[in-house]
């Protein structure tokens, strides 16, 4: 096995996983949770607050929701970090990386904390 001088594979792996979720899962939730349920187009009984609360209380669902929120944040962080570089901002690359991934980590912690409390 070989060694490399960077942990970029970690960020890129999270970026890739986040891209998958942002492309395939988030649109479904935006449609169902963001539009169909509020518009009353989904069966109201099936999505009653009590049932949703019971659903979210399950550990597997919590884990799913954490991934759903956290990974796209890392996708954004990586994309935004390189977007700034592509726009010609070369200075402070380490600081930018810290801020981007830091924001994603903070978002992940907030999401985890919220999920633990519900």
């Amino acid at each position, binding site marked *: *096995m*070989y*060694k*490399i*001088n*960077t*942990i*970029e*594979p*970690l960020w*890129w*792996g999270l970026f*890739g996983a986040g891209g998958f979720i942002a492309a395939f899962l988030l649109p479904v939730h935006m449609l169902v949770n963001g539009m169909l349920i509020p518009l009353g187009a989904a069966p109201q009984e099936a999505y009653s607050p009590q049932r949703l609360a019971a659903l979210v209380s399950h550990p597997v669902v919590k884990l799913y929701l954490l991934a759903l929120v956290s990974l796209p944040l890392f996708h954004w962080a990586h994309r935004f970090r*390189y977007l700034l*570089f*592509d726009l*010609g901002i*070369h200075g402070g690359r380490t600081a930018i990386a810290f801020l981007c991934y830091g924001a994603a980590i903070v978002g992940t912690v907030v999401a985890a904390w919220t999920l633990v409390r519900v």
Partner: protein
Amino acid sequence: MAERTIGLSVTRFRPGEDRQPVSQTFTIPYHDDWVVLDALQYIKDRHDGSLSFRWSCHMGVCGSCGMMVNGVPKLTCAAFLRDYFPNEVRVEPLANFPVIRDLVVDIDDFMHKLAEVKPYIIRDDLETAPVGFGHEFRQAPEEVDDYRQFSMCINCMLCYSACPVYGMEPRFLGPAAIALAHRYNMDSRDQGRNERMPVIGSSEGIWECTYIGECSVVCPKNVDPASAIQRTKLATTNDWFRSILMPWGKR
């Protein structure tokens, strides 16, 4: 009928004389079977023998005659005047490289990077393997298909010239070197992957690439360096997570 002509605006830089590159315009006869390289040769023969540019084969194989033609990196032996006529053609040295003289750029940086990725077959048993008929390192056609397109690279450096990342970060290993490393990593006869991965998987390697994809657009041999880089990112990420999750594993 009067002879048709075409204008060529050529970048000149004479070290010691010019402080910075200047452009000089030549008007030359137009022939629809001429390429930009022919036009430069005509200028050198008839107008100014001091015009300097690199070329060798005139048939898209050697990779020496890469220049910016109307702002796009091209092999000048494959850029026909008829695609620009009647407009003037602007010929400049390859972007992102230091200029030595006129249209000649300094390629040392690329040559060093190319050597770093060890673009040749590495085997432990090269010295000890039996030689002669029947003892060659055999390969099935499907195994050739794994790397064939990446082996078409002629080191013309058009991809470096087209790469905005290389333009901003000269330490970036760059498209062709990574594509060639990938070519040998994918070769079933090769055993040198672990020697190349620390170079191409480093922070100056694949991770600088922001997947703009211009390298693959300008390649005159239809190599797809952007794909080589993406595939290497995936492979490196798999290896990295595996080494974290299963530190005892060999691969």
